């Protein structure tokens, strides 16, 4: 082995044995450190995976949704506008959609009720999301009552509970036939909630949107990119909120770590003196302390990141779901697909490992620069 490598190996070996000699202190420090990395990494992983998931799902969403605005508010629009929009150059497909929100007073949850164009969905039947099924404790074949606009209950037979994969966005979804949606919400024929538009070339979307507004000045086109941005903003906001809530814990750790890392005990000071007196240079002592700090912070970083990975991707972020998922009653249950962002992991690494390693070096640097005899006498 080359002398320089051998030097690192020997110093690293000694660093490890030094850490073991102060087992209690170092284990406590590593445990708290791991916890902080775990919390931060969980947030990063969770928000990142949600954004990724939302992005994937929006892949299949319409390129543009057109709504009608009346007095600055969303209002049902004439379904006949579909034909006029379909004639605009660049529009590949346009479809009138029928949907609305339904508040279930019994379970205290808001459901999204949507008309499905699927002809296999029978009148008087419903396809429901997993969250709805869980909340109402119903399964396929059961009947659920929904209160109509006039207060009278309408009974629907559960034809299907939607697949688990769709739970992130379809947890609160109830799919009915268009006629049933009209009956439930008292929506007259010829009116739609909004229009879904698909463009042949997504680059033309802005032009198409401008043409729609020109044709129907009361229309509001919403592009898919805008929806994606809204999702991202919502998840970032929730993640940020959690960071604010957790900042007191993180600050406590910083104070704890600073205290533990920057204070050299009399024994450590004497040890530095001994090492210098037996032929170690200041640089060798700093290398030793660097390895000690690096081992603690790297172990905490790797431990925290691995725990966070398991927490988010295997246990669906059980500890944070109520704060991060954000549905008031119908919490979706789903397993996130791992989506790691190397940039964010790198930022996390630099925010956790480097400050600690640097914090351990400063006091040692002072002790290591002193003459060995003064370090030993102090």
């Amino acid at each position, binding site marked *: *082995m*080359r*002398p*320089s*490598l*051998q*030097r690192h*190996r*020997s*110093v690293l070996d*000694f660093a490890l*044995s030094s850490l073991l*000699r102060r087992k209690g202190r170092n284990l406590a420090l590593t445990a708290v450190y791991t916890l902080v990395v775990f919390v931060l990494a969980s947030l990063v992983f969770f928000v990142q995976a949600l954004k990724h998931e939302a992005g994937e799902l929006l892949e299949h969403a319409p390129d543009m949704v057109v709504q009608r605005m009346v007095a600055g508010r969303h209002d049902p629009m004439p379904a006949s506008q579909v034909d006029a929009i379909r004639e605009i150059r660049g529009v590949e497909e346009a479809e009138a959609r029928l949907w609305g929100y339904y508040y279930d007073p019994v379970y205290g949850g808001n459901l999204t009720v949507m008309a499905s164009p699927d002809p296999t969905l029978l009148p008087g039947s419903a396809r429901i999301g997993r969250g709805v099924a869980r909340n109402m404790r119903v399964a396929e074949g059961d009947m659920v009552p929904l209160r109509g606009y006039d207060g009278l209950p309408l009974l629907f037979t559960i034809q299907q509970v939607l697949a688990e994969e769709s739970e992130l966005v379809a947890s609160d979804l109830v799919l009915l036939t268009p006629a049933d949606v009209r009956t439930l919400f008292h929506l007259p024929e010829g009116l739609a909630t909004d229009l879904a538009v698909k463009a042949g070339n997504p680059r033309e979307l802005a032009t198409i949107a401008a043409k729609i507004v020109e044709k129907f000045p009361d229309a509001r086109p919403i592009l898919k990119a805008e929806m994606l941005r809204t999702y991202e903003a919502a998840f970032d906001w929730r993640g940020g909120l959690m960071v604010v809530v957790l900042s007191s814990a993180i600050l406590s750790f910083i104070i704890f770590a600073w205290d533990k890392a920057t204070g050299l005990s009399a*024994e450590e000071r*004497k*040890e530095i*003196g*001994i*090492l*210098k*007196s*037996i*032929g*170690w*240079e*200041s*640089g*060798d002592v700093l*290398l030793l302390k660097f390895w000690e700090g690096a081992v603690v912070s790297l172990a905490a970083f790797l431990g925290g990141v691995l725990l966070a990975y398991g927490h988010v991707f295997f246990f669906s972020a059980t500890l944070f779901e109520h704060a991060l998922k954000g549905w008031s009653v119908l919490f979706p249950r789903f397993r996130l697909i791992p989506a790691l962002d190397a940039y964010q992991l790198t930022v996390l690494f630099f925010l956790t490992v480097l400050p600690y390693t640097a914090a351990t070096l400063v006091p040692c640097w002072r002790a290591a620069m002193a*003459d*060995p*005899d*003064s370090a*030993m006498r102090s």
Partner: protein
Amino acid sequence: MIELAQVVKTYSAGLANPYTAVAGVTLDIPGGQLTVLKGPSGSGKTTLLSLIGCMARPTSGRIHLRGLPPGLLPQGADADPLEITSLPERFLTTIRRRTFGFIFQQFNLVRGISVLENVMLPTYPTGEDRETVEARAVTRLEALGMARHLKAPVDRLSGGEAQRVAIARALINDPPVIIADEPTAHLDSRLSAEFMELMGQFKGAGRTLLIASHDPIVHDSPLADLVIVMRDGQVVTAP
């Protein structure tokens, strides 16, 4: 071998309470002999050893070393005699590592690690092959009768055993000069006599020995070639 010219060491110089531990010492310490620095506590013996052993720099004065191994320092810095007080830290460390072996009053072993590891410790920054170093450390410890304590933590050793470990550590880099500060302070008469016997062997092997002590077993020993008496940071009697 070691020449000191008007060496002064003042601690806290420039502050409100400066303390001069060594006050203008001029000395010649011959090579291959046993020199004893004798004097009461606070007479400046330990400070003088620190200055000679490149563990501290004098406030003023010059220290010259003769007969250092060739190639120890890079060309240009390599001279004979070599004036060490103005050398940069890395050169001082190299000289300290290769020229001097230290035996401290409190032994200064690193607690919590084994006897063998303590002896090998000075070689870690050199990048020397671990197996070679380990073989050498084992040989040194065996020669000092410590073979059965190789893996024992130093915390469990008796005073005499701890000192033997400190001696083995001082010898690991095969230094030509052994510096010992009050080596018998924590030993009984029998162990002190054994220690002097070992010093006799080192002297016989051609090493230079420099011991600070106010123990009669040391300074009255027939092995001592030169006894320098110190008081209040100054040499009172010297040849």
